[in-house]
């Protein structure tokens, strides 16, 4: 297949945008519906990435690379899910301050382990040896196929989120997020619901982290900064924390502008790409969080449709 028309920056830019959409959709379930403020997204994402990478690279597999790859992927997802279960157990009955400390603390712990366990992770020097589980020709062709696989994964997450909104489970999450003591008094098992939600979404974040590791082909602790958490949070807040499509719209208005438009289509001076544009990107994201939450707290898409419906019905 002739892929000359496709710019390598565009492939990577689209990959970044899709990755952020996937994480923001999962954050939507946690923050938008159940009001669990996960500030440690990078911890679960990074744990999945490193668990996958370490198992795939460090183990001398007796069978084919594809099987090793799939088992490692499953392992990365499982480890992130188990971590989500443990962290979820800690934070499920804490208020927002406790959730902030628990999730931020977990992300810091992952960074510390990745940095110190040099024999396993390569530490600050990083770890190579990752690659695609197929070879269809050029590097660009392999990366484009991997981008398509990520697109399918994100589409499945989007489909699942839209189903949650229409289900009784979604209503349960919203009721817990709105008023947890009331939900508990009505017999809803809020602790267990939050715990399972947190574990499931953390596992999915780990899976996305493993997918990212394959695209990068080299793991280093520089990936475990606050950037990915910030990008997912900005995308969700700008689009609308309570809306299914909020993450998609938000990512299109934020990450896509910097990672696709600025990288591939606006001819900035070459020297700007090193540090100036990434700095402007983060400053803009920070300012967007402040301005949107102050002036349009429900994001671009506004409040949940069922809230509007309820207000029309009750005339308030």
């Amino acid at each position, binding site marked *: 297949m002739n892929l000359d028309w496709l710019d390598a920056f565009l492939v990577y830019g689209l990959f970044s945008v899709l990755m952020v959409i996937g994480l923001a959709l999962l954050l939507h379930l946690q923050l938008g519906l159940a*009001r669990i*403020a996960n*500030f440690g997204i990078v911890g679960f994402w990074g744990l999945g990435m490193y668990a996958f990478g370490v198992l795939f690279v460090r183990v001398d597999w007796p069978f084919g690379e594809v099987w090793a790859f799939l088992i490692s992927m499953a392992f990365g997802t499982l480890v992130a899910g188990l971590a989500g279960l443990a962290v979820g157990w*800690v934070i499920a*009955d*804490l*208020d*927002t*301050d*406790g959730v*902030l*400390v*628990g999730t*931020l*603390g977990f992300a*810091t*712990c992952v960074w*510390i*382990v990745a*940095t*110190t366990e040099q024999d396993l992770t390569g530490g600050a020097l990083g770890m190579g040896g990752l690659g695609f589980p197929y070879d269809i020709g050029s590097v660009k062709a392999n990366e484009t196929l991997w981008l398509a696989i990520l697109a399918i994964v994100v589409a499945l997450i989007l489909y699942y989120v839209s189903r949650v909104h229409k289900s009784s489970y979604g209503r349960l999450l919203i009721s817990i997020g709105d008023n947890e003591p009331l939900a508990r008094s009505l017999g809803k098992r809020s602790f267990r619901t939050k715990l399972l939600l947190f574990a499931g979404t953390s596992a999915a974040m780990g899976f996305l982290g493993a997918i990212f590791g394959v695209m990068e082909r080299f793991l280093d602790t520089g990936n475990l900064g*606050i950037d990915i958490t*910030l990008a997912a*949070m*900005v995308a969700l*807040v700008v689009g609308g924390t309570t809306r299914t499509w909020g993450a998609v719209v938000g990512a299109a208005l934020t990450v896509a502008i910097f990672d696709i438009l600025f990288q591939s289509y606006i001819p900035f001076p070459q020297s700007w790409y090193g*540090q100036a544009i990434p*700095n*402007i990107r*983060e*400053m803009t*994201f*920070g*300012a*967007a*969080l*402040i301005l949107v*939450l*102050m002036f349009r*707290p429900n994001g671009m898409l506004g409040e949940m449709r069922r809230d509007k419906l309820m207000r029309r019905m009750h005339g308030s």
Partner: protein
Amino acid sequence: MDIISDSIVVGLTEQAPLILAAMGFALLYRLTGLINVAYSETITLGAYMAMWINTTFDLNFYTILIPTGILAGLISVATYFAVFRPAKLRHVGGLEMIIISFGLSVFLRHGLQFVFGYPVRFFDVPAPHTIFVLGVGVSSFRLVAVISVFVLALGLFWFIQKTSYGLQIRALASDEGLAQVSGIRPLAVTVLIWFLAGVAGGLAGAFYGVGSAAAPLLGWRQFLFILLVVLVGGAKNIGGVIIVGAITAVSLTFMTLQFGQALYSQLVLIVVFIVILKVRGTRAAEAGKV
């Protein structure tokens, strides 16, 4: 015994800025109930401003502490008027306030790099004198940090417990509505708290900076420990923050000397603190709001 005395002396002197920053953060937390993530940038700003005043005006380290504290306090007040007060007037929720402060933190951190450049910046100071305490050599800068913590702690305690402004602060923190009808001017008291918190954060940044360098992530790297010290120790009063801060400082140094790896000691302490918060449950955060 050597390792214990080493841990106490090195821990308290090395981590004195942590206690100082935690005191400022606790003051703000008690008044507003807000986890202000952007407080980490007050620390970073303190380091950068101290470095800038030091290298631009060729002033010695001890002299620059006064303008650094005042500037950091004023910037802290400016963030209150520019961001947090308008957000409060718009009735932004508690969770959203934390996210706003996170956004402000990111904005300031990267804005600083535009102002001061991307590489880390060093102070232009002569090598500090070494003073021996219990047989352990300590730099004079670190000793000044310890003395600052001591003086500020005493000052804050006296201010909050013994002065009319302190009484107003306590009244405002416990019930803003009742405080207002009692004739307390909430704005003046709130501004005062933001200023004092900024001074403490800025001075902590100056002490951190002179010990290493002014770097964009300086404050952010300390933020989790500041938060943990305040949530675990700040339930009752500033004294709790100082005690937990001191225990943190000594434990970190003790474990670092034992493991030979500072990051492992941080890992252990994070886990221990989170377990404490879990055991104490939701009361931990609520109790912090006087």
